[in-house]
């Protein structure tokens, strides 16, 4: 068979496998690990729209996760509004906040943008930590919100992990689709140009700034949706977990290691790094706490020095090499089909 055929078969196996996984994996623990993995993959893919395509380094994205979570939960607790609708509301609020923040900050260069997003992220966290109520809405400050048990589809609460699995999987697929689609239409090209050669792009009359803000808004909307998902999965969240600098950095790191600006990079980063976190927490947390962060840091540095485009590049080549070997095709060095 040819390389292309083998490749297609593997892809189909992968997709079928992922979608039918809950049939042959029953343990809630495994499912939880996978759910969190897809959750991070979704977050990094959303982040990628700004951090990858728009070419800047947002380090405060956890703020939008938090905004999404708080919005939908507050609406649910106060008005009984179904979190499904609250999710969309949360996404919209996050997008609005993101746009307001984006307009002035996206004008700043590299490092300053990063610092500004950090400051905003921390600012949101401090604000919520200090606020018990906004008008009639209870935020509970640093204590966080615990969602009462009330299992039903409309309440977005399920006893089993399986529904959560499919929901986040579908969300991830949608996020990937949105990213792919955007890269093929004008905005993708403009952002690409804007990232690589901003002066040239501007000289050609491309309003790079406008497209950056649009990318920011979409990214923040999607990130907000993830916030609601998290809230409904855990049924509890509080500012330091969902709004922290650590969370923002983790999202950015994973995307960077995987490879920002690419479609597969963020997912790949999550796929490889999340198990590291889970293992080191399960097996090492009493002997060597924080090991997974040391590994993150090391991998990050090595990747930045040797493979700034992320590990998706060498992995890609490796995959193609394997396919070649298996299908007996030998390609001349340097000639790519």
């Amino acid at each position, binding site marked *: 068979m040819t390389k292309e055929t083998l490749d297609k078969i593997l892809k189909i196996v992968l997709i079928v496998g992922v979608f039918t996984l809950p049939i042959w994996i029953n343990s809630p623990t495994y499912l939880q690990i996978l759910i969190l993995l897809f959750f991070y993959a979704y977050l990094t893919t959303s982040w990628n729209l700004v951090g990858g395509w728009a070419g800047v380094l947002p380090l405060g994205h956890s703020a939008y996760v938090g905004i999404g979570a708080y919005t939908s939960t507050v609406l649910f607790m106060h008005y009984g509004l179904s979190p499904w609708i609250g999710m969309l509301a949360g996404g919209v609020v996050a997008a609005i906040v993101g746009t307001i923040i984006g307009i002035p900050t996206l004008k*700043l260069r590299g490092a300053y943008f990063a610092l500004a997003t950090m400051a905003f992220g921390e600012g949101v966290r401090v604000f919520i930590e200090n606020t018990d*109520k906004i008008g009639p809405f209870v935020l509970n400050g640093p204590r966080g919100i615990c969602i009462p048990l009330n299992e039903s589809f409309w309440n977005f609460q399920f006893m089993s992990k399986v529904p959560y699995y499919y929901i986040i999987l579908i969300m991830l697929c949608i996020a990937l689709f949105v990213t792919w689609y955007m890269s093929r239409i004008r905005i993708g090209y403009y952002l690409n140009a804007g990232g690589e050669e901003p002066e040239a792009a501007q000289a050609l009359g491309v309003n790079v700034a406008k497209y950056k803000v649009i990318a920011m808004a979409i990214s923040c909307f999607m990130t907000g949706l993830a916030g609601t998902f998290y809230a409904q999965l855990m049924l509890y969240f509080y500012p330091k977990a969902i709004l922290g600098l650590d969370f923002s950095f983790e999202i950015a790191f994973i995307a960077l290691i995987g490879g920002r600006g690419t479609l597969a990079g963020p997912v790949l980063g999550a796929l490889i790094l999340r198990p590291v976190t889970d293992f080191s927490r399960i097996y090492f947390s009493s002997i060597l706490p924080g*090991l997974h962060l*040391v590994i993150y840091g090391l991998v990050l540095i090595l990747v930045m020095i040797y493979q700034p485009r992320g590990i998706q590049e060498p992995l890609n080549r490796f995959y193609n090499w394997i396919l070649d070997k298996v299908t007996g095709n030998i390609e001349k060095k340097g000639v790519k089909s």
Partner: protein
Amino acid sequence: MRISGFPPVSAVRENEVKMDFIIQAIVSGTLMGSIYGLAALGLTLIFGVIKVINFAHGSCLMVGMYAAYWVVTLTGVNPYLALIVVVPLLFFFGYFLQDIVIKPVLEAQSDVREPTEVIIVTSGVWYILDNITLMIFGAEYRVVQTSITGKSFEIGEIIVSTPKLYGLIATIIVSVALVWFLKYTKMGKSIRAASLDREAASLMGINQYRVFNIAFGIGTAIMGVVGCVLLPFYYVFPTVGVIFDVKCFIIVVLGGLGSIPGALIGGIIIGLIESVGAQFMASTWTELIVYLVFLAVLFIKPAGLFGEERDW
């Protein structure tokens, strides 16, 4: 929209705030602020010269504090004597950090004036340092009893904390020394030249990477001083650097990147906001004020109070 908890009880109840307390707040704020300024000094030097955003700055402070802690605990000397060990230790630490970790990134991006990869790499260093410390020393908060812990003296009605006063003195000494170094020594002048244009400086025969290493080393050595200064009154734990890290960045931007007086004055401003601000609202809100001030500066005058205009 009513936010409970803001404005808090204390502001609503007080009709007038006595002058003494304001003066006391100003004094305390200035003392603490000068220490913040000292910490920011190292960062502004590194950023001004190497154009590197060093997210591992707070972690270097943490290393300095642990070094000072162990020297004092093992030998029982006065923390200021510990400077003799800590400062050179941190200098070499910084020197090699720049040489081994950051230089390769700079070399790969030698045409870009401010590579953002460096931010990422230094973040990696931060994570590694903090967590290796966590693994080796554990998460407990360590406190050291020194001869000056908890001491203070009174000038009239105003109480001055002794360890913090020493901090102010240390700041003054270090700043003066730094200015003298940059202005009058050969290495100092090379550093200033490289900060203006590293390509031109290298054409002039200055080994830009060696200069960077030394500048980084000096920046970290200053953090060693801060570590010794903080030891008498603050606690040592693996993530102590994070709080100072964020503050230092804010101060550096506020004061202007690369500006020494900017770092010091920026530090004092932050110290005053925290100290005087806390008299009018719950201290948990002053953090937010600091972030708002930071953002205001970023948008209105990104070059900071004393910085030069650049094409941001």
